[in-house]
């Protein structure tokens, strides 16, 4: 692949990042809402399932845009919400921190 092709790929990735960033942020918002509900002991099964699906998508897509740490954190969130124990007791900490980390990681992507 030549330099011109690499440049075309980078340009296309930047365009797709701009296009899909809003929906990526929506998925992080789902995780943030789930973390708040969890801290209040009010996370429903449907909300837990939605958070798991959002985390699954983020795990797949963030690394593709060069945000490998985002994939790692999203996998942790997916594992957390896939575990039925998430519904059992109110808790803060891990899910809140993961959502905050993901929000911060988004801003680290450099436009090539």
């Amino acid at each position, binding site marked *: 692949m030549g330099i011109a092709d690499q440049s075309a*790929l980078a340009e296309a990735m930047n365009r797709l990042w701009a296009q899909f960033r809003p929906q990526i942020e929506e998925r992080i918002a789902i995780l943030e809402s789930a973390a708040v509900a969890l801290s209040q002991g009010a996370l429903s099964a449907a909300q837990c399932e939605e958070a798991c699906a959002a985390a*699954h998508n983020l*795990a797949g897509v963030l*690394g593709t*845009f060069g945000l*490998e740490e985002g994939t790692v954190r999203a996998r942790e969130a997916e594992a957390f919400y896939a575990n039925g124990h998430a519904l059992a007791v109110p808790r803060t900490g891990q899910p809140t921190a993961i959502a905050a980390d993901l929000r911060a990681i988004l801003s680290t992507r450099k436009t090539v």
Partner: protein
Amino acid sequence: MAHRILIIDDEDDIREVAAMSLETVAGWEVMVANSGAQGLTRAATYKPDAILLDVMMPGMDGPSTFRELRKNPVTAKIPVLFLTAKVQATDRRRFADLGIHAVLVKPFDPMTLSTQIANALGWK
């Protein structure tokens, strides 16, 4: 030679990045479908050289879609590669038993996705 690929994935961001990658890096022709059902129709009409199939999709998931592809004589012999964000050793064995050619993991590198596919299928 430009290979013809069908990407079946319900997640539009992944689908679009994969399509753009294969078109830009490898110069392949790409068709996309956003569900297993749509993928079955497009595979039968488009007759791609290979199918990149998401595992976890609402409704008809990857394994179900694969089984339907194999039932149709028109699509039965098209090589299928699974694309998944979550794969464990047991999944790989289960997918291999189904007859899947390869399992590619998300996230993928857009720069090398076409090479991964070509290597898995023995394309030069």
